[in-house]
């Protein structure tokens, strides 16, 4: 957590004001929670059976199945995105102009419009063009294509963040360009990128909820069905939200730990210019030392 912006130790007057402010704020927050709960209670939304349905074994299995589908789509999407991202990043750094140009076009194009549009096209347009896959793969294709464009930028920033002397030295001792990239540059760059890559995994995991629009049975779709079936839409959706938050908090923790370790051992991590949309990378900005 950032230190408070108060400079030196507060004097007696400042301490008293902070104390009063804290008490008022604490009472206010508790009061807000109470008002919210009373609102739930007044509309019968705290009734035990609405919530207890959620822990019936059948419902739990249904939810966890949805979570498993979400994680499966995210994992497959991530594998595809990493592959595409690596190819596009190397393309953008290539010495051949057409390759640079093509990879740049790919990155700019697919980052420029909504993932939802891409996935709707993938799921409804591709079958019209005679490409018939299971629903899962349309979703994964959309996730991989879009996040591949974002990862390409992360990879490129990671590779460029490395001191040029590294690849120059590698070439000097007689390695070919490919060897220098593979043996010297990438291993070091990957470490710097690790936090940003995990950050992008969180974005991708959240993006799987777009599967909702194409009837893929992921967590949100399952929660929605449960709610409609059992008449506890609010409770089911809140439970789904809590599951998403829990999984992503764990991933954020991993990202943060990687970042701290990275910073301790090797200095800064990368900061992506223009950044992945959810900007975990901004947090990895070098100046966090104060």
């Amino acid at each position, binding site marked *: *957590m*950032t230190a*408070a*912006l*108060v*400079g*030196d130790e*507060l004097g007696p007057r400042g301490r008293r004001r902070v104390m009063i*402010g*804290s008490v008022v*704020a*604490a009472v206010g*927050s508790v009061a807000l929670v109470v008002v919210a709960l009373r*609102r*739930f209670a007044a*509309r019968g*939304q705290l009734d035990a059976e609405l919530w207890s349905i959620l822990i019936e074994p059948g419902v739990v299995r249904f939810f966890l199945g949805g979570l498993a589908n979400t994680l499966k789509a995210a994992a497959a999407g991530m594998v595809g995105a990493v592959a595409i991202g690596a190819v596009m990043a190397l393309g953008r750094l290539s010495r051949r102009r057409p390759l640079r140009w093509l990879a740049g076009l790919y990155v700019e*194009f697919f*980052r*420029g*419009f*909504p993932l*939802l*549009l891409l996935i*709707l096209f993938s799921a*409804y*347009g591709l079958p*019209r*063009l005679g490409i018939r896959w299971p629903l899962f793969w349309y979703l994964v294709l959309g996730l991989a294509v879009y996040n591949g464009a974002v990862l390409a930028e992360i990879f490129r920033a990671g590779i460029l963040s490395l001191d040029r002397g590294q690849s120059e030295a590698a070439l000097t001792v007689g390695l070919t360009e490919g060897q220098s990239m593979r043996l010297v540059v990438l291993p070091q760059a990957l470490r710097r990128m690790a936090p940003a890559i995990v950050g992008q995994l*969180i974005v991708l995991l*959240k*993006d*799987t*909820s777009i599967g*909702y*629009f194409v009837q893929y049975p992921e967590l*949100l779709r399952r*929660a929605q069905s449960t709610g409609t079936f059992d008449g506890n*839409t*609010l409770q089911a*959706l*809140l439970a*789904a*939200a809590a599951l*998403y*938050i829990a999984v*992503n*908090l764990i991933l*954020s923790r991993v990202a943060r730990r990687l970042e701290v370790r990275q910073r301790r051992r090797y200095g800064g991590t990368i900061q992506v*210019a*223009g*950044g992945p*949309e*959810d*900007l975990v990378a*901004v*947090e990895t*900005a070098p*100046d*966090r030392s104060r």
Partner: protein
Amino acid sequence: MDVVFDNLDRFAAGMGTTVSLTVLSWLGAFVIGVVVASLRVGPILPLRGVGTVYVEAIRNCPLTVLFAVFFFGFPSIGILFESNFISSVIVLSVYTGAFVAETVRAGVNTVAPGQVEAARSLGLGFSQVLGLVVLPQALRSVVGPLGSLFSALIRNSSIAYTIGLVELTGTAQQLSVSTAQFVAVFAGAALAYLALTLPAGAVVGVIERRVAIKR
């Protein structure tokens, strides 16, 4: 591409909705973001806690889920808006606000501690230090990241389709179903989005250079 040119009016209407949704939500998100970032760097612990919980919960929840909770869940506790558009502006503001808050806070971290100390020794109070000294510098240093959040917001506004608000993506989906011309319609919509995001990025680049702090 005939199907696009024949339906230019519908595309234009969809784009109009996307733009107004984005701009209004951005205003909301910016206000929320600055307020929450201020809470999180302030000296009052409970308020810092509230800010942290808000940012962590919202950032880690998919936007689609927020839309669903707000639109399908909240009516059962009596929170219901007549207009899909207003609901969408609220959800998009709340969601983007969490990211703006984190970005502004990152910006606050880039302001040299000496600035705060100097302001304090001139006798400024917390809100003066923050409002007159720290935030102006912090915001200038995060124009680029805020710009990418704005572009992300243009794209994210499509998720309002969850609750049936027909903006650009919704228009494309409806047109593609009614005309069965998937490639042309989706290509048209993608280009329309690029026509929004690319100029927005260029404008942000200009602003970023204008306000950059020269050292």
